[in-house]
């Protein structure tokens, strides 16, 4: 079965510091990979998706970027964090277009 590993679980970062969140996938090859964010009191918003190595599509303009250096690795980054980047970040993957398996999430607090 497919498993999404995501770390760290919680992160507190000062404004202006860089960010790197990593996500890896087990149990499938060539998955579609996604980064979602859940801001306080809001639903899940799709930030980036990738259909293959080096292929990244951004859904919303923002202070973040994503990269996919390997088939089963997806990285979310920022050069300088803003207060508004705080939220719950979720990595998801799916071989089938109709389902997505989620990681455990990272609670990011920018202070």
């Amino acid at each position, binding site marked *: 079965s497919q498993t999404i590993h995501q770390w760290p679980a919680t992160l507190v970062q000062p404004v202006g510091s860089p960010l790197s969140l990593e996500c890896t996938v087990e149990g499938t090859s060539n998955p579609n990979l*996604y980064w*979602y964010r859940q801001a306080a009191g809001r639903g899940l918003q799709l930030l980036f*998706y990738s259909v293959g190595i080096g292929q990244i599509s951004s859904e919303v303009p923002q202070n973040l970027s994503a990269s996919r250096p390997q088939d089963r690795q997806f990285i979310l980054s920022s050069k300088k964090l803003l207060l508004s980047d705080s939220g719950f970040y*979720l990595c998801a993957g799916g071989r089938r277009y109709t389902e997505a398996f989620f990681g455990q999430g990272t609670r990011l607090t920018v202070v």
Partner: protein
Amino acid sequence: DQQVKQNSPSLSVQEGRISILNCDYTNSMFDYFLWYKKYPAEGPTFLISISSIKDKNEDGRFTVFLNKSAKHLSLHIVPSQPGDSAVYFCAATIAGGTSYGKLTFGQGTILTVHP
């Protein structure tokens, strides 16, 4: 523009009774719908789904109903159990094409089942 809406932020139900969670969508291109369940500080887990070619899908205590003309779907949980207490997200996607499995989520409904 919120294409998938869950207008009830919360729902409180007695154990053993039915829980009905509602979801509305505006994009008529959506043809596949999913429900996810999420506990605090965890990622969502897939619960049940339905294709637009059906109007009902059942899995144990969980049933999803789809009304395409009304662009409305609902999740029924019978009987409700305290362990069902969680946030429930409705999601929609366009199967195939260039959607690449991207899901559009509603805001979520917090379900609390009281013993």
